[in-house]
């Protein structure tokens, strides 16, 4: 066991950090307030090879490992959580399943431009009545000769306002519940496909979250990802990987907030001394640093497990649960250390505090993570 990044990973981290500081950070506050989707950021990230970090070079990606991917998401999220989740969705929820379940033809046609960042992807599973229980989804796909015809609605779809390609989950047989779910690759210019305007949210406000609607949307059977009825498996396996991305995002948000709090505590003077001289503040900082290290290590461990072991659901769920709740605590303490200033828009910590909140919810709520973990632990110990 060892936990040092390799030389290559350090170089990656440094170059992504530079990009984050110089390009992403200056716009973070502005896009948070306006809700404007940062398509330019995605394009630039794509040029740097960050849209498909762990996708082999042969399919347009950067051919790196999953820990490198975590480093990328952490560094971007450290300055802008919105940008972090945009990348995470494209990498984890779109490129990953295409790589794992796609045919050679599908990979060439769809994965290559997505992994290269020429196209932006989104993942359409959640519906108004199907959140934590996706098996209850109501979107349908009817086979019609060589085509499928899709009808239904999707909700809270990150990247939805700007995506070029959507992975859509719909039922080919509603009676079969989760065994009837099938996954489709859908270019968003397909007739019958429409999306709403972006949803104004508490945090990660510029991530293009919106609803999708499919009305008699006809797609060729060749765009089905995996077999009929395999969609649930595709979704669950994909979300296992996605959780690692969200864990990395949570670590990045927490790291950003921690650094601001550490600096502020040393500048801010009360009672004649820097507030960092007070034990109460020191203990906050100590706890933040400790939990951050634990969250990062659990995230890397999940990434390592994904690459080196046949199963990684437990590690991914633990990393996601721990890191997201850690980010919530760390951003809360960072805001507290800033006092009244932290509650204003003048400082970044209020944004970090808002952005952290969603990490406990999307790609499986904390409650779903606990169900996954308890299930594995009760079986295994």
């Amino acid at each position, binding site marked *: *066991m060892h*936990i040092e990044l390799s030389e290559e990973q*350090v170089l990656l981290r440094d170059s992504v950090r530079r990009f984050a500081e110089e390009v992403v950070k200056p716009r973070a506050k502005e896009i948070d307030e306006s809700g404007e989707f940062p398509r330019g950021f995605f394009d630039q990230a794509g040029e740097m090879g960050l849209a498909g970090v762990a996708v082999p070079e042969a399919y347009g990606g950067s051919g790196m490992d999953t820990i490198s991917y975590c480093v990328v998401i952490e560094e971007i999220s450290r300055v802008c959580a919105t940008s972090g989740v945009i990348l995470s969705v494209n990498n984890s929820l779109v490129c990953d399943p295409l790589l794992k379940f796609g045919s050679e033809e599908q990979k060439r046609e769809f994965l290559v431009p997505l992994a290269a960042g020429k196209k932006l992807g989104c993942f359409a599973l959640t519906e108004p009545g199907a959140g934590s229980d996706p098996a209850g989804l109501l979107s349908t796909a009817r086979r019609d000769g060589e085509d499928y015809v899709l009808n239904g609605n999707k909700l809270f779809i990150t990247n939805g306002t700007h995506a070029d390609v959507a992975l859509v989950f719909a039922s080919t047989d509603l009676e079969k519940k989760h065994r009837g779910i099938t996954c489709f690759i859908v270019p968003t210019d397909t007739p019958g496909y429409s999306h709403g305007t972006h949803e104004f949210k508490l945090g990660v406000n510029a991530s293009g979250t919106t609803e999708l609607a499919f009305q008699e949307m006809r797609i060729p059977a060749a765009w089905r990802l995996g077999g009929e009825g395999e969609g649930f498996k595709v979704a669950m396996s994909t979300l296992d990987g996605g959780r690692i991305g969200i864990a990395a995002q949570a670590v990045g948000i927490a790291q950003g907030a921690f650094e601001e709090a550490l600096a502020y505590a040393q500048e801010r003077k009360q009672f004649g001394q820097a507030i960092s001289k007070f034990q109460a503040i020191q203990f906050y900082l100590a*706890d933040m*640093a400790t939990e951050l290290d634990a969250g990062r290590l659990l995230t890397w461990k999940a990434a390592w497990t994904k690459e080196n072991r046949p199963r990684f659901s437990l590690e991914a769920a633990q990393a996601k649960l*721990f890191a997201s709740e850690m980010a919530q605590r760390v951003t809360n303490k960072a805001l507290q250390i800033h006092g009244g200033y932290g509650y204003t828009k003048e400082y970044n910590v209020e944004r970090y505090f808002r952005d952290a909140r969603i990490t406990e919810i999307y790609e499986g709520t904390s409650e779903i993570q*606990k169900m996954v973990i*308890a299930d594995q632990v009760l079986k295994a110990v």
Partner: protein
Amino acid sequence: MTTASLAVEREPSFAPSEEQELLVREVRRFAEERIAPGTRQRDRAHEFPTEVLREMGELGLLGMLVPDAYGGAGLDSLSYVLAVEEISRVCPSVGVTMSVTNSVCCWPIARFGTEEVKRTVLRELATGECIGGFGLTEPTSGSDAASMRTQARREGGEYVLDGEKAWITNAGVGRYFVVLAKTDTAAGKRGITAFVVPADLPGFRVGLPEEKLGLRASRTAQLFFEGCRVPARYRLGEEGEGFKIALATLDHSRLGIAAQSVGIHRRALELAVAYARDRVQFGRPIAEHQAVSFAIARMATELAAARVLTHAAAIREAESDAGRWAAQAKAYASEAANRACYDALQVHGGNGFSEEYEIARLYRDVRVTTIYEGTSEMQRLVIARHLLN
């Protein structure tokens, strides 16, 4: 582990080496076969596990980090924490006895002792011929170790020690103690010097065993020094270097307590899982109620966090920020283990409050982990000092 061995061309890895896995298997088998069967009885009788310690010594578990040349196992810190976890899982009392001998007795002697002391005293300890302890705390000097009152007066080739030490693990059963005393009472922490003190010296006396909330099969007592003459060759480091030696020793020993906490935490999780699967209420195993299964999920997740922090601290031991990592591991692992034991007892309901069930003992045993070898509060001060410098 040296910096050079942290080969940067490799990507991070979370797998122990084959040797480490083999060690874990052997230690686990020994723990289950030779330690676990007597744990409950020893706790009830407040009985020190002399025979178990003898066997552990033969297996090389008491001088794990000591170089081969001095009779030790010459292992790395990660191997050490893995072994402490396995032992503590079946008996935290044996865990702390082991951790103290390895971390606060062998370790400072191996690092700061003279060649002669290493060839004699350290060899006896490392080969398991005897166990040892560490005398820093005093009745009025706990977290503020520099305020100690025990004195060491130089007289020719000897130092004469006077004073008392409190809460000393292995007092009465250990043969050698690393003892901190003031050679210059006007110099504050710079006046503190470290010594190896054989327990059979005249003027060395041990108090009655303390009655403790937990860890009842580990021995804890006061040490009294009354004109105790220690040969100068038993001094560790130079005069005035004792405080530095004590802090370095505690940085290292926190790994042992973090590992002990992880072992206790793991056992609490196992007990909660077993009980929750068996116990039926409202027509189904309580494990099927989310209130219970989510508590188990949290225990398992915090165990994973505590373990990875502990392992990271072990493999970073030679780095400049090692003190921060050790403090983080100790603070987090001990507090997480306390939460786990609390929750595991809660899962047991009324049965958990009965000494019939193992969780009741663990609940008592775990409490001290946030206190000894630096309270959680001291760990946070150490962490903050690293962050703010």
